[in-house]
């Protein structure tokens, strides 16, 4: 505990804030049914009830409690975004490292495949894929993961490539270490910094992508609440200065800022700068 506390005070204020926010979000995800005052899909009142002691943030267009929807929304939104991003980093990162370490035909093949996918606008690609296979949470995660993995692949490959040619990797190779050893012990530790930085932004782009898909009528399945669709749902109200649609958008923004504060801290630590 003491050790935790001393290391806690050692990190910058912004990162503390970030970690705190992330913890709160994780709690929301885990404890949504206990924290939310009402059910996720329960229709309780008239549409657009104002803020009151019963409905803290009012009700939405169907008369469902806004606060409960936002709390449950954390579950669906953060869940989907997290799984999709992790999957993208797993696939893209692994293949990228592999392409850089093995090189040759495999590298060419993977790189050209990624070129092709990236050359197709991602929105159109998603539109085509989701229309063909249908929109479910699974297909949404898979399509986003596939699209994002191409970007992670390029990043991982190019950074790894510059590491592969370095002396310490060459030395390990001459020692007779296997490919997996090289990837895990020599290359991965040295590419993690840019990958972490990328993770912070990538993660938040997933929210936006889901929201943009709902703009084209391809959002998540009802009646589950997700922040992206919630913004879209009430967006026209902003034209009259009504702040209802701002709430889920702020929920996304807060998480993005928090994650990137933590990323900045990690990045700074990795750079070896003392100031």
């Amino acid at each position: 505990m003491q050790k935790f506390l001393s290391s806690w005070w050692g990190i910058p204020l912004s990162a503390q804030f970030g970690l705190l926010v992330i913890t709160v979000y994780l709690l929301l995800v885990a404890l949504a049914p206990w924290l939310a005052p009402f059910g996720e899909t329960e229709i309780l009142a008239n549409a657009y009830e104002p803020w009151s002691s019963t409905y803290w943030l009012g009700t939405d267009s169907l008369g469902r409690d806004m606060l409960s929807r936002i709390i449950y929304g954390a579950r669906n939104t953060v869940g989907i975004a997290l799984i999709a991003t992790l999957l993208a980093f797993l696939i893209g990162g692994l293949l990228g490292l592999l392409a850089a370490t093995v090189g040759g035909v495999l590298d060419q093949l993977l790189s050209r495949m990624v070129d092709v996918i990236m050359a197709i606008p991602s929105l159109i690609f998603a539109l085509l894929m989701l229309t063909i296979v249908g929109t479910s949470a699974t297909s949404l995660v898979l399509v986003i993961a596939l699209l994002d993995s191409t970007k992670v692949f390029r990043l991982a490959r190019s950074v790894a490539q510059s590491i592969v040619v370095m002396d310490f990797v060459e030395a390990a190779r001459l020692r007779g270490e296997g490919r997996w050893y090289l990837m895990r012990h020599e290359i991965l530790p040295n590419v993690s910094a840019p990958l972490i930085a990328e993770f912070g932004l990538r993660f938040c782009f997933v929210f936006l992508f889901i929201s943009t898909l709902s703009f084209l009528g391809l959002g998540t399945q009802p009646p589950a609440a997700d922040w992206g669709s919630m913004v879209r749902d009430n967006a026209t109200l902003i034209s009259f200065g009504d702040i209802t649609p701002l709430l889920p958008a702020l929920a996304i923004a807060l998480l993005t800022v928090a994650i990137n504060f933590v990323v900045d801290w990690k990045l700074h630590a990795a750079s070896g700068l003392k100031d």
Partner: protein
Amino acid sequence: MDSVLWSVGGWTHDRNNVYELFMGSIAMKAILIMVLQRLSLGFLTLFVVSVIIFSAVELLPGDLAQEILGQSATPETVAAFRAELGLDKPAVQRYGQWLFNVASGDFGHSLANGRAISELLASRVGNTLFLAAYAAIIAVPLSLILGILTALYRNSWFDRSVNVLTLSSISFPEFFIAYILILAFAVKIPLFPSLANIYPDTPLGDMLYRAALPVMTLVMVVVAHMMRMTRAAIINVLASPYVEMARLKGLSPFRVIVKHALPNALAPIINVIALNLAYLVVGVVVVEVVFVYPGLGQLLVDSVSKRDVTVVQAVSLIFAATFILLNLVADVLAIVTNPRLLNPR
């Protein structure tokens, strides 16, 4: 939104003599060969993209006849429609025909309304490029300056607030940023029009004025990404020995960054800029819809929903070519700043 690329020549080591190396004619020749190689590969990519897009549109449920007739489709009219447009022929044959025509420079006609693709695209290509260039001219310098300043004053309040602002702006969906800007600058303070409806005969001054809000939206969307990459890449090289050396020589922190750190951090920055430029051309359909801007994105989405495969193909190829060219330029620039990348193995 597109991605970060750290196609960087080395994260931690010194590369001081790169310029001498580059000046050699061998390097020039190598770059030329690479460009040619990449261009031919690019054509291959375009071909594969066209095959994928064609097959995907084929796989989509429903065809042009059904989509055009919509709720009023009857089996007879659908059959007549297909026969008229040759949709009843096998897919491979239709693709072959299309490829042959494109190879001889003819993109054909829209299946839906028979207008020539070249005529359909003419003004829209210009509009899309205009919007992208307009946004880029503002966004790229802005993000570079902000990136350098935040790296210089890293962890200060200035750094923090710029980060919070840009991160918040990319956390909001594009259409939502657009709505807020419209509320602020078209409804509350009527500075700019909320519709960016420009036509072929609109004079340049008018175009700049009418496209102001879409450009502001796009700038807010892309600045964060480029600015954060600039900041990260600069901070990453600040700890390297030669920057340390420069610092020890007593140069001011600003000069250290601009003269020594920035040139060595350029590769990843260039890549991110290239990706964002590609995004400005390729990915702005939402902004086009909200501001009623007649660009290519809307044309593409519209044609996909109508299964108008010739238009889908033409626009997809333009987008793919943009992406390939911008990537090529980025890679050449990356090599110019770090020729070691020419022989990565």
